[in-house]
């Protein structure tokens, strides 16, 4: 298929200028501009205008926008740079290590309370033990093998109950065990949430660090370039002065002759 280019079809010329036209149209226009001075001049003028456009660049701007979201369901906000935390110390979230330590303390206290209840005989009726003194066991007159075995059995039962409660997160039969299990679940959830938050923070900080590094590098490069420019300017001025001085000396010597 052959296609002829209509002289003065400027939209087709624009397609040719940006190389967004069919191959046959390109061939037709290329052939036309070799013989038509007006279209050739128009095309050249458009190209030179495009060359001028390349000189226009936007100024460097510090952007670095980030989208952040608060814990409570509040509107989203943008932040340019990380701001220092202005909330008071007791309102800030605890770090992960502190939450782990708190959880350990709570767990240990709970265990001790459970053991103390078992040994003191305070609590449910099944915890009541009868310490019978066996003849011939002089080393531990208040503790019998049977009571130790009963205590061991009771502790194992309680620990198994706690494990089941933690695993299945269902309400345990005993109110105190239920509270501990709920507390443990909550503490674990808090720890996980804190870790996720810290990982997120770390990723954001890393991104910001990379960006800061890049902007610092640009500033340094600009500084170096500025110094180079100054040196170039000074050198050029000195060369010009020396050349003028030399010309003056030559002219003066010629005049003296």
């Amino acid at each position, binding site marked *: 298929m052959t296609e002829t280019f209509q002289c003065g079809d*400027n*939209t087709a*010329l*624009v*397609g040719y200028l*940006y190389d*967004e036209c069919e191959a046959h149209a390109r061939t037709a226009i290329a052939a036309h501009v070799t013989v038509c001075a007006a279209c*050739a*001049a*128009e*095309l*050249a*003028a*458009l*190209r*030179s*205008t*495009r*060359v*001028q*456009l*390349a*000189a*226009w*660049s*936007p*100024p460097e*701007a510090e*952007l*670095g*926008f*980030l*989208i*952040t*979201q608060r814990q409570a369901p509040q509107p*989203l906000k*943008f932040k340019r740079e990380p701001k220092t935390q202005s909330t008071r110390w007791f309102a800030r979230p605890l770090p992960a290590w502190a939450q782990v330590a708190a959880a350990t303390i709570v767990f240990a206290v709970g265990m001790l309370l459970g053991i103390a209840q078992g040994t003191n005989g305070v609590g449910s009726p099944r915890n009541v033990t009868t310490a019978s003194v066996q003849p011939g066991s002089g080393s531990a007159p208040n503790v019998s093998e049977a009571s130790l075995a009963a205590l061991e059995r009771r502790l194992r039962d309680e620990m198994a109950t706690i494990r089941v409660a933690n695993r299945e997160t269902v309400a345990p039969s005993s109110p105190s065990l239920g509270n501990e299990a709920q507390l443990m679940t909550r503490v674990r959830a808090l720890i996980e949430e804190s870790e996720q938050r810290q990982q*997120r923070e770390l*990723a*954001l900080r890393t*991104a910001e660090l990379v*960006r800061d590094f890049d902007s610092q590098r640009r500033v340094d490069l*600009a*500084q*170096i*370039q*500025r110094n*180079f*420019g*100054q040196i*170039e*300017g000074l050198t*050029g001025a000195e060369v010009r002065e020396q050349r003028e001085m030399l010309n003056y000396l030559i002219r003066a010597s010629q005049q003296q002759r």
Partner: protein
Amino acid sequence: MTWTDEDLVARSRGGDLDSFNQLILRWERPIYALAYRVIGREEDARDVVQETFLRAFRALPGFKGQAKFSSWLYRIALNLCRDWIRRRRRSPLVELPEGVDPVELAAETGPVESIEDLASRKELSEAVAEAMSLLPEEQRTAIILKEYHGMTFQEIADLQGCPLSTVKTRLYQGLAVLRRNLERSGRLTPREQSGRPAPQMVKRA
């Protein structure tokens, strides 16, 4: 591993803020360049960038991926620019500085250029900015999207909501007016204006 825009959009829609922030990091410079060239003011261009990403984030659940994410962003940014132009039609688009500081100029480009070249380039940049500011908004936007963002005629037509032939017409008319404006400001030499070699003076034999 580098995620594609589509991956990051999918993760953002799942609630991953970091993924959306990566999209911001990837696209904020082009959107800023677009906004600056369309409206001509640095601070306002930054505001447009911020608002663009905020709107995009809020509208993310409704973005089904019919278009490229970048095209969607460009559309939001252009709409914001259009609103800005409507609001501040009276104010000048480009503020020309009174003088040219060679030291400041030297800081903006490489050391291989001389001070004279730097000054000339800066002046040319300002002349182009001024000439562009005189164009009608549609022509200016078409030229910006084509020249600085490398979009196809079809992509520009989709963004501007007009036929492809209209985009070509806008480009041609915009370039022609721009050329006249540059000629008037003395930025185009006779050789550049005619596209032919300028006549040279030669010694007679």
